C-alpha cells in the first residue's frame, strides 16, 4: 500500500533529538516521555499571572492549514503565542492555491519571509513529511494531521491526559471506539500506546469502519461494544468523520449510536474508575451521550488544556533541535571556507 519510509531519518537530529514532528511511529519511549515531561511543566505554568515563556521569542511560526480546523488551529496558535513566537495563520484552501500557485511556490514564498516553523494540516497522507523532506528542510515542520496517516500531537495530548490520571501505562487496558477507518488519531494513538507499553489495546467498531489488517498494529478487534468495553481502564472515543465518508458505510447515525454510542449503561461495563476521552468536536447523541460527555469520568476538557501544553512542548523541542542543526551547518560551512 505505502512504500515504507523511516520517519526518524527526517524527524530526528544526529543526536536523536526532535527537529520535526511528523509521526509518533518509530519514536522511542524515552522521547515520548520527554515530550510528556516537558508538557507537564507547561501545564503547571497555568498558575502564573503571565502565561508566557520567552523560548520562541523572535521566531515566526506559520500555521499552514490546507484543511479546515478550528480546535487544532486555535490550540496551535495559542501554544505558539504562549512561547512568545510571532504567529501567522494561513488558510491555504481559500488563498493563493485558488489563484493557481503550486504548493512548492507557496512554501518557498513563506520561506523567504524567514519563517522558522510550519505547522501543517493537510488532507493528503504524507504532506508534512513531503514538506519537511523536499521543500524546506531547515524549517521545523510539525504535523497537525495528514489525511488518514497521523495526528501526532493529538495522540501525545491523549497520552499526557492518561498519564496525569492513571500514572503509568503498563497495567492499562485501553479501548479506542468508533470510526477507526478514517482516523489518523486512532493510528497515532495505537503507536503511542504500544511504545509506552500499554497492557492491552482494543479497537471497537463496525466492520465497515475498520481498516483491513488493523490487527497487524498489535490491537484486539471487537465489533461488539459490550464485549469490548468489559473491564477497560480508558475509553477513547473517535468522531464519526462524515466528511470523509464517500460511500454508505453506515445505515444511519441513530443505528450507530444504538450500537457504538457511549452511554451510561455501556460505560458501566468498564472498570469503575475508567475515564472517557474524545478528541472533539463531539457529536452528542451520535458517538457519546451528553450525560457521559459532561459526566465526572469525562476528561474531554482536560484534553483541550493538555493539548496546548503538548503543542508547546513539541514546538520548543523541535525548535531546539532545528537550531542546533543550523548551528552545525553554519560551523561546517565556516570550516570549509
Amino acid at each position, binding site marked *: 500500500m505505502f512504500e515504507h519510509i523511516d520517519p526518524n531519518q527526517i524527524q530526528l537530529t544526529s543526536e536523536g533529538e526532535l527537529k520535526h514532528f511528523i509521526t509518533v511511529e518509530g519514536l522511542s519511549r524515552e522521547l515520548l516521555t520527554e515530550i510528556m515531561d*516537558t508538557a507537564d*511543566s507547561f501545564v503547571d*505554568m497555568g498558575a502564573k499571572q503571565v502565561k508566557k515563556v520567552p523560548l520562541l521569542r523572535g521566531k515566526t511560526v506559520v500555521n499552514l492549514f490546507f484543511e479546515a480546523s478550528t480546535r487544532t488551529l486555535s490550540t496551535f496558535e495559542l501554544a505558539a503565542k504562549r512561547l512568545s513566537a510571532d504567529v501567522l495563520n494561513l488558510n491555504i484552501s481559500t488563498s493563493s492555491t485558488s489563484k493557481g500557485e503550486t504548493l512548492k511556490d507557496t512554501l518557498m514564498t513563506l520561506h523567504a519571509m524567514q519563517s522558522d516553523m510550519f505547522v501543517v494540516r493537510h488532507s493528503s497522507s504524507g504532506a508534512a513529511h513531503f514538506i519537511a523532506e523536499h521543500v524546506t528542510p531547515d524549517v521545523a515542520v510539525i504535523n497537525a494531521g495528514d489525511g488518514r496517516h497521523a495526528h501526532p500531537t493529538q495522540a501525545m495530548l491523549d497520552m499526557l491526559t492518561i498519564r496525569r490520571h492513571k500514572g503509568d501505562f503498563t497495567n492499562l487496558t485501553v479501548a479506542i471506539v468508533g470510526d477507526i477507518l478514517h482516523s489518523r488519531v486512532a493510528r497515532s494513538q495505537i503507536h503511542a500506546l504500544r511504545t509506552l507499553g500499554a497492557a492491552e489495546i482494543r479497537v471497537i467498531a463496525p466492520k465497515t469502519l475498520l481498516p483491513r489488517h488493523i490487527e497487524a498494529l498489535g490491537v484486539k478487534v471487537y465489533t461488539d461494544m459490550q464485549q469490548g468495553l468489559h473491564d477497560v481502564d480508558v475509553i477513547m472515543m473517535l468522531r464519526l468523520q462524515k466528511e470523509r465518508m464517500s460511500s454508505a458505510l453506515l445505515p444511519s447515525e441513530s443505528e450507530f449510536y444504538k450500537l457504538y454510542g457511549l452511554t451510561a449503561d455501556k460505560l458501566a461495563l468498564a472498570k469503575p474508575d475508567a475515564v472517557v476521552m474524545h478528541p472533539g468536536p463531539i457529536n452528542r447523541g451520535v458517538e457519546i451521550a451528553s450525560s457521559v460527555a459532561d459526566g465526572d469520568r469525562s476528561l474531554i476538557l482536560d484534553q483541550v488544556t493538555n493539548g496546548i501544553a503538548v503543542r508547546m512542548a513539541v514546538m*520548543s523541542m523541535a525548535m531546539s*533541535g532545528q*537550531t542546533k542543526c543550523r548551528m552545525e551547518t553554519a560551523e561546517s560551512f565556516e570550516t570549509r571556507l
Partner: protein
Amino acid sequence: MSSSSLNVEALLKKMEQDLKALLTSTEREDPLMIGIHTGGVWLAERLHKALNLESPMGVLDISFHRDDFNHSGLSLCGQSSQLPVTEGRHILLVDDVVMSGRTIRAALNELFDYGRPASVTLITLLDLQRRELPIQADVTGGTLALGPDQQIKLIGPEPLELEIRQK
C-alpha cells in the same frame, strides 16, 4: 579564599547571620524565600529552617527563561516552579552561586510573570565574580576566584559539599 576553606556549613552560618541582620535593618516582615533549582533549593531549605520563617518556601525552575536556548536548546531540570502568591511580597531569592548573573536575570524575569513583588533580595552561597550583567548579591557566604579551566558544583542535599572540578 583557598579551596581548603570551602566549608559549606561555615558559609551557611555567615549567610544566616548576615541575612538576619539585613531583615532586621530593613524591617521587612514575613519575607517569602524562594530557591532556584537545584542547589538554591537545598540552601533555601536550610536557611528557611534556620531563620524560622513563617511562610512556606517556593521553588523556581528557570529552564524556560534561560537566554541560551538558541545555543544549547531546551534543558529541563525535571521539576517545575512551585510558587505561592508573590504579588506584593518581599522575596528572598536563593541560589548556590552567582557568576555571570544570567541565571539571576532569567529568575527575575520568571518571578515577575507570577506577579509584582514588593522587593527581591539576592542570597548566594558563593560569588564567583566574572559578572556579565549588572547584578549583585545582597548576602553571600564568600567570594571565590576560579581559574579559567575550573568549575564549581554544589553536591547535596545531605550533606552539602562544594566540589571544584577541572574542565
